[in-house]
């Protein structure tokens, strides 16, 4: 096996699941995601001699994936689920301002959340929020790397991340309420705030 290919395989291929996972959440289609990841790897292999050794290979691959996505998929990507984001944010603020102890809320909303619920809550986020929260909290990219990825100032990354987390907290609180936890401020009008979702982790 050629040394370059060997180096490429040891540097780049370990990130395949991270890329695929992100691609599925971008395209909302596993076949499209597979095509996108394959295209990413072929481009990366062709230009691997341009990759600056010692820099973050994962971030480099994610940038190639994003560019491929914009070129190939974005115009035809499926429309996100319709979600009342304002309702979720209002719901979140009601919880935040309630008198329930933070530790109790964290236990009910976060500790008891099911993996599928968390995955579905992420799926339901608008793309710009979904992207930053995945890159930051799941893939551990720095703010600088995310800013470069989404081509925005770091301040935008911070604000999108904050809103993404608020929306996620609101969605998870709603799931907790549906599972019977006594979450303050919720009512039946919140039912529509949580999408049924068509894509669960592990499906």
């Amino acid at each position, binding site marked *: *096996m*050629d040394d370059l*290919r*060997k180096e*490429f*395989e*040891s540097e780049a*291929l370990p990130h*395949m*699941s*991270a*890329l*695929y*996972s992100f691609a*599925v959440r971008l395209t909302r289609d*596993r076949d499209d995601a*597979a095509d996108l*990841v*394959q295209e990413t*790897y*072929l481009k990366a*292999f*062709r230009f691997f001699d341009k990759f600056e050794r010692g820099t973050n290979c994962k971030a480099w691959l994610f940038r190639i994936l994003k560019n491929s996505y914009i070129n190939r998929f974005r115009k035809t990507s499926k429309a996100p689920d319709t979600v009342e984001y304002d309702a979720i944010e209002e719901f*979140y603020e009601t*919880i*935040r*301002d309630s008198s329930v102890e*933070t530790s109790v*809320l*964290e236990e009910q*909303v*976060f500790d008891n*959340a099911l*993996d599928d619920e*968390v*995955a579905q809550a*992420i799926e339901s986020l608008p793309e710009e929020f979904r992207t930053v*929260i995945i890159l*930051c*909290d*799941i893939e*551990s990219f720095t703010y600088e790397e995310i800013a470069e990825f989404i081509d925005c100032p770091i301040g935008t990354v911070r604000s999108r991340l*904050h809103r993404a*987390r*608020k929306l*996620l*907290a609101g969605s*998870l609180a709603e799931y907790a309420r549906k599972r019977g936890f006594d979450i303050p401020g919720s009512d039946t009008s919140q039912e529509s705030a949580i999408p049924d979702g068509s894509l669960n*982790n*592990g499906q």
Partner: protein
Amino acid sequence: MDNNHFSADLRARSHDRDEQLMQGVSALLMKRRDALRLQVPVDVERSIRMAIAAEQSAHEHSWVQAALDWIKRPAVSFSMAGAAAALIISIAFLGQQSQALPSEVTHAALAAFTGVHTGSTKLDITSSNPNEISAYLASHGVQHSVFYPDVEAKLVGANVFSVNGLPCAELVYKTAGHTIALLQVDDSSIDAKRVELDPVVAEDVAYSKWHWASTPENGTLFVWKSNSIMCTVVSDLQIDEVSSLFRLEAL
């Protein structure tokens, strides 16, 4: 407390609580990272690895083609003729040397397949029953446990095949008139250098899980390791046909 202080206190409390909840979300996602990350399906991974190998092959071919074009130039071709003749003789000599290596696993698998496929080698045992086959193989010197992959073809029997004196199992499958022969060698015998495995193949298996290649007769050679068994499939089917018959997730 006046209204201004009360409002400021409320805002500060909201801010603190916000921070705590945001940290809670972040911690939740980090903690569930592995569960939230979708694993790339085996067939997608294989397809990507094969595409990279094909890309490399195409790249190398373009260099070969460029070199051939250069050699075709009249001024070069005359002076290269003698060297080419010497090269052909060298290649033929090396080829003969390769064929004379009975202990190399892929060569052994190719030879074993050819015998079964052409009918010059009769099956030692004709059976589709894995238990019966395993018992036969064990009684004829095969010491490793025999691996029966999930393959959409009919198991028709097996041979005990000797690789450098080491008894190894060869399972034979048939599908739509095609033959799939699976030679199994205990990995420890390769490690102990009792039998050889082509270093390129060994490297591919180590780095890429699988080694795929076309045989000289346009068939397929497919090598992978299952637990402690090095498995070598040779078939007259094409690579994509072999790939679709084997449940690679289970390998």
